[in-house]
């Protein structure tokens, strides 16, 4: 059963793991650069989590506000991330995203238009100007479909419903291939390849309330860690302020920020627009302090400041959390998000069709007539594989990462809309550089039989073990631990307890038992995914415990303020056997000409 010679085997220049926006864009770029490339993805093609992105792609095209340009976008991004972003990534992102959007149009995407026939752009939190290219509130679907159809048209090989469990390295510790299983049959595949692009997305499934799909088990994070790369900024997890809270079945499902961008406001049980009570000093100068000014801003951005509902996500999520804790929440433990009283039915149905549909079908709520109930939901991890900003390569030669699995770009908090643009900008860079790296490497040692045998045995272990632990139960327990002990508001004693719990869960994970056989067996798949979830959860808890301040997506009850001594420190997680170690590193310093952009208000 573990004879390496019996396994299906393929040779490629570049393997892309993941078929969301970043993976597809990387594969297209690698193909265009002349590489033989394959995409490996856990789900069917076109089902990756990108499909759920709603609001839009942030790009300073200046179609709606001609004052907008990459420097403003760069500044917004850095300030949104509380200046902990890798400046070079934020710069490249702001400079290149407009071109990446135009490219999508060339491949068939149909964005909503302005009256002049250009791509329309909508307002979003933390962005000074209306900047998000969009298609109603289903922008992610448009993005993934466009890239999917492009990849198919180029004839790129896709291994669908196929999970990578291990990356191989040669004697010089360079990437040499990957090990995977077909979910359909449970059979193994070995890939020989000198370059691997990780585009596996995030980690949300380690949390109880999340907008993320089953695939988000931190696979790429764990694969990178186990291959010798470091994970940066893992303490920063984004809780999107507005997830559905009722009925329990849909708790956590995303309610797009576009609702607020298009005029919706948050109210507590007393009917008060409470966000005016939560404007932090850091954003005071650019945020409206009366309802009148806030409402005027939608049409006149030059003479008015932004509504506080459009503060960055970390600020809004914390405010909602505080209102609920103070007893001013909605009946089901959220707050009210109201667009019905502020915009016409026709406008809401045109701008927010999937929100309208989602609430009607799943919650019996008509958002054109009544307020939604919303609360924070685990949405995105800012932390990820530390990579070179220009090439997206990690410290492991041949290992690249792009999209949510990569770290640094968003600092301590990501602005809405900056994810889809991130996927495109760095997906393309990763694919192109991976292709060049691979074609330059002439000496390619095949993966050794011993390595393959070890990978096969590790994958089959859950069938051999007889400990009686149920993978589903273990996953639920991990989700509870992360939700209640390393959630939106943190403190040392709770995180220490979380680390103890994670250690216990790791022991139990070695005793998982799965029933049935290898053919399309979700219990087995989960048993393998749990290892990654535990590894990533340990990184998050450790880094969160280490950072003794509050910043962006990391809020500590015991260290409630931002501390300047942490302003230039990045925490890196590295593998230490089966455990994780933390290293402090200096944040790369921004050149003076960029620093000047922050002198103005």
């Amino acid at each position, binding site marked *: 059963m573990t004879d390496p010679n019996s396994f299906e085997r393929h040779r490629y220049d570049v393997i892309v793991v993941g078929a969301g926006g970043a993976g597809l864009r990387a594969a297209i770029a690698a193909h265009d650069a002349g590489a033989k490339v394959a995409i490996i993805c856990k789900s*069917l093609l076109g089902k990756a989590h990108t499909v759920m992105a709603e609001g839009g792609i942030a790009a300073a095209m200046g179609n709606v506000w001609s004052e907008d340009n990459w420097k403003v976008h760069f500044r917004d991004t850095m300030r949104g991330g509380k200046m902990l972003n890798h400046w070079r990534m934020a710069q490249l992102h702001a400079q290149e995203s407009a071109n990446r959007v*135009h490219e999508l149009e060339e491949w068939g995407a149909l964005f909503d238009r302005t009256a*002049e026939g250009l791509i329309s752009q909508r307002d979003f939190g933390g962005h000074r100007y209306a900047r998000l290219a969009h298609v109603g509130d289903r922008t992610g*679907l448009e993005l993934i479909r466009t890239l999917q159809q492009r990849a198919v048209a180029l004839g790129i090989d896709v291994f669908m419903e196929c999970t990578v469990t291990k990356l191989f390295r040669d004697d010089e510790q360079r990437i040499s291939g990957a090990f995977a299983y077909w979910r359909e049959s449970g059979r193994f595949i070995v890939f020989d390849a000198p370059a691997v692009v990780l585009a596996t997305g995030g980690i949300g499934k380690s949390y109880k309330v999340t907008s993320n799909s*089953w695939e988000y088990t931190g696979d790429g994070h764990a694969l990178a860690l186990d291959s010798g790369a470091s994970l940066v900024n893992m303490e920063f997890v984004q809780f999107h302020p507005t997830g559905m809270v009722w009925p329990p*079945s849909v708790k956590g499902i995303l309610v797009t920020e576009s609702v607020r961008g298009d005029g919706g406001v948050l109210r507590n049980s007393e009917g008060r627009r409470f966000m005016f009570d939560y404007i932090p000093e850091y954003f005071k100068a650019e945020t409206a302090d009366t309802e009148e000014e806030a409402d005027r801003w939608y049409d006149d951005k030059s003479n008015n400041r932004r509504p506080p509902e459009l503060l960055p996500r970390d600020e809004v999520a914390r405010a909602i959390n505080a209102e609920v804790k103070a007893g001013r929440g909605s009946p089901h433990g959220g707050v009210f998000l109201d667009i019905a009283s502020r915009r016409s039915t026709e406008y809401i149905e045109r701008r927010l069709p999937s929100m309208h549909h*989602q609430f009607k079908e799943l919650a019996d709520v008509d958002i054109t007539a009544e307020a939604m109930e919303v609360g924070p939901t685990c949405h995105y991890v800012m932390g990820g594989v530390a990579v070179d900003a220009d090439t997206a390569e990690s410290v492991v030669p041949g290992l690249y990462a792009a999209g949510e699995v990569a770290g640094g770009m968003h600092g301590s908090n990501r602005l809405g809309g900056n994810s889809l643009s991130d996927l495109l900008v760095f997906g393309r860079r990763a694919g192109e550089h991976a292709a060049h790296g691979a074609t330059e490497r002439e000496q390619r040692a095949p993966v050794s039989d011993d390595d393959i045998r070890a990978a096969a045995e590790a994958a089959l272990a859950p069938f051999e073990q007889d400990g009686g632990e149920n993978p589903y139960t273990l996953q639920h327990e991990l989700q509870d631990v992360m939700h209640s002990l390393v959630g939106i508001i943190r403190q040392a004693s709770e995180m220490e307890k979380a680390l103890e719990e994670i250690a216990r869960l790791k022991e139990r994970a070695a005793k998982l038992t*799965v029933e049935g056989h290898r053919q399309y067996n979700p219990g087995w798949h989960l048993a393998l995914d749990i290892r990654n979830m535990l590894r990533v959860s340990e990184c998050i808890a450790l880094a969160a415990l280490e950072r003794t301040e509050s910043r962006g997506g990391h809020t500590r009850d015991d260290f409630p303020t931002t501390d300047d001594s942490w302003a230039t420190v990045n925490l890196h997680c590295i593998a230490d056997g089966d455990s994780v170690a933390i290293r402090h590193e200096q944040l790369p310093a921004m050149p003076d000409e960029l620093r000047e952009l922050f002198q103005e208000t």
Partner: protein
Amino acid sequence: MTYDLNLRVWRGDASGGELTDYVVPVEEGEVVLDALHRLQATQTGDLAVRWNCKAGKCGSCSAEINGKPRLTCMTRLSIFEPGETVTVTPLRTFPVIRDLVTDVSYNYEKAKKVPTFSPEPRQADGTYRMQQEDVQRGQEFRKCIECFLCQSVCHVIRDHEENKEAFSGPRLFLRYAELQMHPLETNDHRDAAREESGVGMCNITKCCTEVCPEGIKITDNAIIPVKEHVVDRSYDPVVWLGRKIFRRSSDD
């Protein structure tokens, strides 16, 4: 409010299978996929089910519920009578892999045959100009989440394996319609639509439109225009007849 749901699920693989009865505790406001997940987590760890977003946006969790093709994540348990048994079976048009998971590769193979989009060049300033009214038609088709419910219900292939070779199905007709109506498209894809997609075999019974969870008017807005575009009216009897009966106009 928690209650016990009688859930009947098809279990098996390509070699055969059977309906199996389970009792699953469920709560108010839950959907069929919640019940399947609870069954999987507590009684049948190896129950094969596809799903991703659980919000009606990815089209992964398609199955037939009491005989009707639906998304299990968007089918609320409250639509059934109290005490009613809910039966979940795999999509019938595609070969079973295991339990509720079917081999949908047919759709992906057909997608490879759709011609590549070839736009006119960008304007001098690097942009494209299109009006909202002009992109709206294509946008309706691009709402498709590829759940393949329309493919499963289409009787040209539902019980006629032999037609699959020549017939791409409603999902793919949306793609041809999209190309045809794209404001920037420069190529004429009539031959491809006629020869590769087999759109002529569709006799517009609208079953696809009825099951579309996105509410796309597949028959009226996509298939009929594609049919009209690709064939001479006298060549396709359905279009000819449709014109005679429903839409006789001044140019007839």
